[in-house]
């Protein structure tokens, strides 16, 4: 082992105030299986991310494959030679995509041609035993299968360095064994490949060629497993690791002893009778029976997805069983029974505490929710903190805690109300051996001292051995149920793990993974690693576009909303918004009551703008009815109106207009003045009074919309409105979703560039938006009967540029936001305000002032609004609107470049 694949010198890394890596200097040997071992949260993942070039180097130097990983050029050059599989089951996979599509996507990202991809995928799926599940969505795979798929995706491009971050965490023993067999076979085929693995399972680390034991951001020791055992004089790695720990940490750790259980007399705590759960035609749990005594520790062992969690949910009342029944303390489980809930503590598989609250806040909140006496809460929280070793994290946000600590917090929360029974769903997955022992010590104490009944599921065999009794579960059925010793004896196995694997193999019918002993497939002439990936690749861009498109298609709800939503909205808005001011309610305080005054009122009531209301009797009434918003206009005709009119003497009619809505008031005044002038004209003719002819006339020509129908103006304006919101929001959420779910890692770890990533993701949404655009145009023409006077081609072109710009706006928003909620809110607030008020929907941008004017000028909807109205109603052509087209076009590169600039190619 002379060669090194990665070299770290003085590497330091911190997240805020937390030190993740502390001055690490390490040479990792090449061409072998190198492992980083140690509990969670000691910096293994951070170190791997630095070596992979996925995370930004803060301090020190990292060399991978012979070059400085600070250097962007080197990074992009070695990127195709590295494969990185992040922690978490299938974190870099796309759950709605099928097995084949996932691998295919990665093949495309690494620029492989169709034929090459197909051979490779077929080969990989065959050797991993996934070929039979080629078309199954990744989300429906079991944990072990997800990890195998992740491995396929990582291996598609024949990497020289394979980095696996805790690949077998949370995977059942059979799948785990199959996974390592697979890795061995691959290494047999490609002996030059370096594999760098992190693991918290000491058992599997024994098979590695080289190990670095880590703790607290530092390397404790390096060497082969044998060297480490020799140095510490321990008999297995678990013990060796504990020996390597600094003295302070080791203190108090001793081998765990389970005191025998003293049987209690007062009936079973949990009883399951033929418990069955069906989801559709899938039977998740199939007639499960068991009986658990008080104070007993009962273990549930099984592979992922075998029905452990579903059984537990039925016990807690979260899921009503399809058949059979469950009894807790002799009562049938009922979801609404609050008293039973208070006697049970529950810890779910997923970390389900409030990540945004601190450790203390989480504890206090749960104590309060269980109504512990207020005086006792502080003491109880302190007790929990002490017992579970949470003191140093007291004010840390739960989301920022390492996995092991979070699980401890979960347990602390589950027992804060001193329940009689604990139901724990895989409480220790991902927790290091020292912490796990500590955790079990607590469980044993709870069981033996406090008489708490504990029902626990796990996939750690040594934990199974600690239980009083266990059930082995597979595919919804209990395979066997007894004390661990009895089970081992019954299969004649050496250990519980072997016994379990024997039961599993018996149940699944065949041995292990399909063809585990099959000779490694012939080496499919590995393409020599490309010197350096191109700066821009159409294939990679299209790979992203294709994948996003598939995701959009697989989410019918999102698609329906995107398309149908805009149709519904255009109907509502087109019919609903009307700038016409009509049907104004008016009433008159007629103090004259002569034929003349009545004629004046008649004249108003006859107009289509006004609707007469019961007359007013007093000024007070006028005031009151105006105040209540009952009237929009009130008139007061003074006494002697008729007489004065006839004699040509001056008289004044009082008009009160409701100014609450200024624009309506303005229009109303216009109407009143017009009708007043009309009346005078008629009166003049009738009475032979001197005509008040004006010396000039104004000839008003209302263009484009002679009938003054709002719908003609609104419908072409609503189209840009809707093409702003929906594409922008779809897009923004599309990118942020990757950030939240973790698949953004693929941007960091593969040769795809930021531009390819962004444009690739944008294309499908542009396509969806264009479909929605044609739907809107069809509605406008056929339902609203707004003729499209200009050319559809020009309008389509405008729409295409416009949705490119608005999706670009969504991209820009997504680069700021880190959560989907924030992306949603930011996009909604920005686009709604700007489009509705500043883009000329009701008033032309040239009439705006100040900030609004500026926003309007720099908002794409402004220009498309002009194009849409121009083409719909003004019969304009491209050349009349070229300025708007150019302006619109200018947004596209600006928005894209801005987004590229803001998006980071490495994690910070």
């Amino acid at each position: 082992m002379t060669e090194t694949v990665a070299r770290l010198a003085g590497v330091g890394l911190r997240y805020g105030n937390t030190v993740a890596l502390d001055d690490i200097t390490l040479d990792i040997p090449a061409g072998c299986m190198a492992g980083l071992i140690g509990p969670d949260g000691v910096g293994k993942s951070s170190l791997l991310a630095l070596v992979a070039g996925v995370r930004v180097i803060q301090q020190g130097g990292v060399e991978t494959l012979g070059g400085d990983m600070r250097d962007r050029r080197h990074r992009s050059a070695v990127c195709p030679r590295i494969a990185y599989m992040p922690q978490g089951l299938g974190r870099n996979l796309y759950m709605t995509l099928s097995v084949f599509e996932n691998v295919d996507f990665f093949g495309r990202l690494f620029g492989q041609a169709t034929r090459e991809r197909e051979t490779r995928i077929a080969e990989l799926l065959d050797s991993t035993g996934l070929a039979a599940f080629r078309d199954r969505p990744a989300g429906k795979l079991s944990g072990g299968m997800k990890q195998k798929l992740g491995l396929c995706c990582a291996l598609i491009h024949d990497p020289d360095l394979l980095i696996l971050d805790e690949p077998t965490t949370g995977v059942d023993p059979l799948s785990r064994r199959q996974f390592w067999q697979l890795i061995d076979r691959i290494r047999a085929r490609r002996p030059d490949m370096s594999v760098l693995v992190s693991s918290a399972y000491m058992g599997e680390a024994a098979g590695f060629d080289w190990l670095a034991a880590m703790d607290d951001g530092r390397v404790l020791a390096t060497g082969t497993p044998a060297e480490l055992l020799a140095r510490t004089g321990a008999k297995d790695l678990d013990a060796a690791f504990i020996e390597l720990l600094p003295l302070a940490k080791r203190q108090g750790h001793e081998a765990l002893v389970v005191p025998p259980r003293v049987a209690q007399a007062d009936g079973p705590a949990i009883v399951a009778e033929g418990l069955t759960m069906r989801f559709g035609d899938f039977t998740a749990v199939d007639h499960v029976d068991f009986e658990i005594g008080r104070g007993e520790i009962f273990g549930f062992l099984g592979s992922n997805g075998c029905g452990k969690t579903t059984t537990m949910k039925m016990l807690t009342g979260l899921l009503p069983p399809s058949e059979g029944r469950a009894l807790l303390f002799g009562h049938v489980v009922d979801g609404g029974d609050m008293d039973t809930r208070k006697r049970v503590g529950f810890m779910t598989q997923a970390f389900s505490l409030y990540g945004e609250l601190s450790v203390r806040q989480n504890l206090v909140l749960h104590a309060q929710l269980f109504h512990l006496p207020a005086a006792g809460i502080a003491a109880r929280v302190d007790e929990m903190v002490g017992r579970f070793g949470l003191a140093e994290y007291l004010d840390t946000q739960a989301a920022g805690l390492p996995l092991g600590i979070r699980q401890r917090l979960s347990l602390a929360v589950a027992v804060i109300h001193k329940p009689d029974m604990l139901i724990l769903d895989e409480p220790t997955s991902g927790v290091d051996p020292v912490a796990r022992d500590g955790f079990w010590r607590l469980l044993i104490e709870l069981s033996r001292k406090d008489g708490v009944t504990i029902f626990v599921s796990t996939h750690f065999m040594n934990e199974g051995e600690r239980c009083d009794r266990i059930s082995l579960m597979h595919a919804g059925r209990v395979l066997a149920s007894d004390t661990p010793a009895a089970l081992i004896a019954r299969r004649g196995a050496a250990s519980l793990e072997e016994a379990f694997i024997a039961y599993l193999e018996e149940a699944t019918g065949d041995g292990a993974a399909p063809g585990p002993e099959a000779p490694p497939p012939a080496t499919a002439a590995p393409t020599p690693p490309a010197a350096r990936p191109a700066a821009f690749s159409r294939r990679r861009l299209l790979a992203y576009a294709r994948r996003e498109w598939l995701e959009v298609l697989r989410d019918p709800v999102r698609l329906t909303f995107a398309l149908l939503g805009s149709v519904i909205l255009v109907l509502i808005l087109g019919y609903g918004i009307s700038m016409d001011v009509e049907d104004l309610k008016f009433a008159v305080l007629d103090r004259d009551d002569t034929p003349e005054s009545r004629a004046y009122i008649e004249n108003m009531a006859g107009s289509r703008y006004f609707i007469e209301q019961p007359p007013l009797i007093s000024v007070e009434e006028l005031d009151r009815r105006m105040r209540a918003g009952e009237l929009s206009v009130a008139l007061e005709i003074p006494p002697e109106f008729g007489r004065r009119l006839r004699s040509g003497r001056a008289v004044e009619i009082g008009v009160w207009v409701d100014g609450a809505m200024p624009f309506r008031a303005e229009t109303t005044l216009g109407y009143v003045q017009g009708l007043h002038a009309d009346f005078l004209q008629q009166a003049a003719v009738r009475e032979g009074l001197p005509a008040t002819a004006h010396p000039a006339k104004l000839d008003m020509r209302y263009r484009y919309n002679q009938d003054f129908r709002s719908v003609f103006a609104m419908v072409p304006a609503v189209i840009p409105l809707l093409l702003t919101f929906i594409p922008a929001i779809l897009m923004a959420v599309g990118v942020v979703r990757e950030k939240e779910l973790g698949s953004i890692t693929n941007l960091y770890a593969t040769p795809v560039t930021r531009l390819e990533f962004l444009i690739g993701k944008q294309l499908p949404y542009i396509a969806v938006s264009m479909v929605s655009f044609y739907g809107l145009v069809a509605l406008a023409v056929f339902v609203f009967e707004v003729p499209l006077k200009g050319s559809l081609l020009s309008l389509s072109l405008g729409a295409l540029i416009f949705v490119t710009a608005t999706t670009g706006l969504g991209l820009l928003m997504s680069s700021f936001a880190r959560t989907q909620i924030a992306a949603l809110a930011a996009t909604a607030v920005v686009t709604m305000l700007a489009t509705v008020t500043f883009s000329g929907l009701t008033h032309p941008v040239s009439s705006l002032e100040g900030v609004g004017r500026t926003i309007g000028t720099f908002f794409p909807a402004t220009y498309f609004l002009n194009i849409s109205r121009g083409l719909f109603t003004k019969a304009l052509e491209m050349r009349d609107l070229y300025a708007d087209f150019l302006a619109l076009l200018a947004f596209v590169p600006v928005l894209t470049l801005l987004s590229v600039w803001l998006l980071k190619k490495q994690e910070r």
Partner: protein
Amino acid sequence: MRKRLLNAWRLGLKELMSLWNDKVLLIMIVWAFSGGIYSAATATSQELHNAPIAIVDEDRSVLSGRIADAFYGLYFRLPDMITEARGDAGLDAGLYTFVMVIPPDFERDVLAGVQPSIQVNIDAMRVSQAFIGAGYIQNIVLGEVGEFVQHRRSEAASPITLAPTVMFNPNMTSSWFGSVMEIINNVTMLSVILTGAALIREREHGTLEHLLVMPLGAFEIMLAKVWSMALVVWIAVGLSLYFVVGRVLDVPIAGSIPLFMAGTLVQLLATTSLGIFIGTLSRNMPQLGLMMILVVLPLQLLSGGMTPRESMPEVVQNIMLFAPTTHFVSLAQAVLYRGAGLDVVWPSLLAMAGIALAFFGASLLMFRRSIAAQG
């Protein structure tokens, strides 16, 4: 019951802490109720303001010059003096809303009493500006012509005049209207987003399930989100009304602010319930976002806060009576602009309360069902 309320109270405090930790969301709320209100109130003018106008002066006389000078800004932008050919192009391109053509020999014809015509071409696509502007142009032009003529000829003025009074907003200042309506829009939008998102967040992070195994019911979980998010928005409204609308924009508030705030509270009960409703219907954030747009946009645009309700089709008006926003808009206008008291606005308040309770009940039912069905 006391215990359940206490639970809701504590869970609500948790919601507040979560919100406090989401800085982006916080900044959005602050912006929406400060800068957002300010810019919406100052920039949009529902009435005529800076309308773009051009004049084709083919007369080039003293009178036509005076007419052009009469458009000195404020209502209209300073007119562009252009040729006839550019007039049409300008209208087509949307540069002008009005193009006025003063014919040759206009002044001579006026003096000769042949009553010549000035042609005004109006872009009727800009519906509101077009109509109001036409009235103003008529007044301005006829006023100028009249004044010009009076030097030569005496004209009998009409004896019957109108004495118009615009109540509640004498100068028809649009920021009075815009600011309050924007607050209403934000109330609707943010309360729906905040509660809906708070629910989805629990679902996506698995904490909802966690709550359900504790001695908590759907009622407490929902009430916690409703009260906490409503409180946040309610305080934001109060501050915004006092500082942004009252102090910065200087909008005189005629009526009782406590009454308005009480109305806001009822409205918030309705909209936060709506948020829960949408949250139970949607499975993830993107779906929530789309659904929110579908619900919030019509609420904002059709409730009378943007355009007068009476001009909408009868069906729309009737349907919108079931939306709390409609009543809230009418209450806000009555209280804040017209100084109406409880004696006037109680029907709106009652309607809102009814709708709010119905929404809350329906959401609770939906929410119960959705958590019973979840696996």
